[in-house]
């Protein structure tokens, strides 16, 4: 096995036993990046020198037995999380040269644990997108088929973990941006409960929807990353002060006694036949593993989630992106006067999808439309949340597809915003409700990955991990690797 194909827990064992050094592991990953990047373009910045320095430090820690499971293990951070001294661009012209003077809380925590950071991941600009095609810099390709999208907005991180350009990654998820690319790239992606992981240092898109989460090769790795990044942070006023359990204790390989529900509404019209078949087989496997499955659950408000999301998220985004005015940092156009400078800074600095959403949000919040749009969407949000609450009184978890289709072709949806928004129809309601969602590899359709989404009530990540782990151990879908040497298919 190539060193860059190891999981965190496998790497940790080898590092602990001194069978490999952090430096050797990091060099293997960096060499692989140099080899593979020209095909997939997952990185905005590769931090090779930094990584080697951190690897040397990790080896010192390992020598004195002062290591954690993440010490010396190479990771990729999505480029919307502040990394001190290293460009944090959000894949936007607006922040192309922005170098943060501080680390995000999650980055600080990973550094303390001994992370080796190999770079920053390409994304849809300001996290607005479902395909990585809205990066202002370049498109990232799906390693399973280079002519297809990796998903978004955490496309770069998903690809890196899939190809071996990083052992794990951190992504962010506002409407599906961790789970959907995880599903499209055959890896594990977790969006934690809202408030579980600090957003301090995460460039804000939609403040009531954003969460940072892990992107890993298997569920055990996801638990290891969550053990480090989860927890209360006084610097994030939406951070919840609940204790963090040891998530690795949830890795139980059977589902006896668990009651699962399958909400019909997630098997949407327009869902790909092959994806549906993979899902039905996967859910049958969950029954085999000991769970009782109710195939007739109904969450009737699901159909309103797309509209509610595409009012709430752009509205919050327009407020969060008002700070980009060319005054304190970022792209700054000279202009004829202050207002002209500001308008041109924002007109040139932002890409089309970002501008679309800012206008949508401004419209939804403007006088005369606020009640009909934003307030209405917030009320519908309450109903969606309640519906999940009621369901979780009857079921330990809900199972849905992560996406209605396999990864689509690059260029197929980018000119039709509505078609693009539909990619997230299975993931959006989860952010609206604030509940956690885990996507795990569930099989293949026409050689392309299909993800299964596991949902639970707030702070039930342990249940999601158990279900994901049991399923993964019984099927092994996540062990398959894309064959990049053969052109990616």
């Amino acid at each position, binding site marked *: 096995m190539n060193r860059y194909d190891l999981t965190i827990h496998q790497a940790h064992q080898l590092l602990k036993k001194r069978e490999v050094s952090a430096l050797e592991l990091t060099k293997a990953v960096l060499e692989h990046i140099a080899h593979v990047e020209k095909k997939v373009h997952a990185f905005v910045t590769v931090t090779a020198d930094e990584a080697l320095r951190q690897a040397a430090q990790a080896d010192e820690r390992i020598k004195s037995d002062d290591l954690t499971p993440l010490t010396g293990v190479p990771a990729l951070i999505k480029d919307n999380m502040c990394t001190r001294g290293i460009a944090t661009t959000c894949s936007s012209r607006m922040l192309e040269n922005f170098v943060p003077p501080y680390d995000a809380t999650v980055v600080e925590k990973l550094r303390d644990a001994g992370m080796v950071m190999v770079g920053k991941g390409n994304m849809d600009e300001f996290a607005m997108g479902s395909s990585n095609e809205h990066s202002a810099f370049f498109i990232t390709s799906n390693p399973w088929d280079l002519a297809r999208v990796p998903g978004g907005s955490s496309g770069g991180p998903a690809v890196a973990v899939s190809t071996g350009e990083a052992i794990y990654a951190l992504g962010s998820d506002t409407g599906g941006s961790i789970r959907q690319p995880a599903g499209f790239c055959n890896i594990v992606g977790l969006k934690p409960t809202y408030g579980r992981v600090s957003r301090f240092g995460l460039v804000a898109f939609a403040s009531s929807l954003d969460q940072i989460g892990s992107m890993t090769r298997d569920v055990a790795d996801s638990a290891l990353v969550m053990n480090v990044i989860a927890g209360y942070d006084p610097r994030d006023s939406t951070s919840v002060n609940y204790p963090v359990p040891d998530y690795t204790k949830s890795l139980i390989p059977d589902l006896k006694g668990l009651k699962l529900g399958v909400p019909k509404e997630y098997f949407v019209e327009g869902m790909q036949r092959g994806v549906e078949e993979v899902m039905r087989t996967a859910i049958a496997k969950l029954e085999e593993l000991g769970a009782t499955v109710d195939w007739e659950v109904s969450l009737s408000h699901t159909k*309103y989630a797309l509209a509610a999301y595409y009012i709430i998220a752009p509205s919050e985004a327009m407020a969060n992106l008002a700070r980009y005015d060319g005054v*304190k940092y970022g792209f700054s156009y000279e202009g004829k006067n202050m207002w002209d400078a500001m308008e041109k800074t924002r007109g040139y600095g932002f890409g089309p999808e970002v501008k679309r959403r800012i206008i*949508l949000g401004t419209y939804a919040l403007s006088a005369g439309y606020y009640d009909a749009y934003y307030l209405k969407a917030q009320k519908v949000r309450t109903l969606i949340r309640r519906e999940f609450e009621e369901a979780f009184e009857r079921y330990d978890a809900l199972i849905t597809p992560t996406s209605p289709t396999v990864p689509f072709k690059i260029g197929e949806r980018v000119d039709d915003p509505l078609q693009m928004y539909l990619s997230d129809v299975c993931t959006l309601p989860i952010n609206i409700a604030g509940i956690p969602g885990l996507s795990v590899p569930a099989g293949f359709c026409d050689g392309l990955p299909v993800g299964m989404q596991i949902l639970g009530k*707030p702070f039930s990540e342990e249940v999601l991990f158990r279900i994901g782990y049991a399923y993964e151990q019984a099927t092994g879908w996540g062990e398959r690797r894309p064959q990049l040497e053969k052109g990616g298919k």
Partner: protein
Amino acid sequence: MKLSREEVVHIAALCRLGLSEEELERFQEQLSNILDNFDILQQVDTSDVPPTAYPIPLENVVREDEVAPSSPQDDILANAPRQEEGYFRVRAVLEQ
């Protein structure tokens, strides 16, 4: 719901977004389509439903008003497009 060109111009001014003619036309079309899809929310009876701003039951998260170290001025000015003597330099805000 068809957005007029004037409405798009008005909204763009509200959020200080400089748009080209081509963008104005394209966004007018695309946004009208998107807004049509929001009509579905009018089907939902929300007469006695409170709005949800945040999905967690937190309110009035405050801290003690204690002075703590802040970021060094140099760090903050390092990304400034224009600065002078420790200030961010901007265009005139007020007319003469």
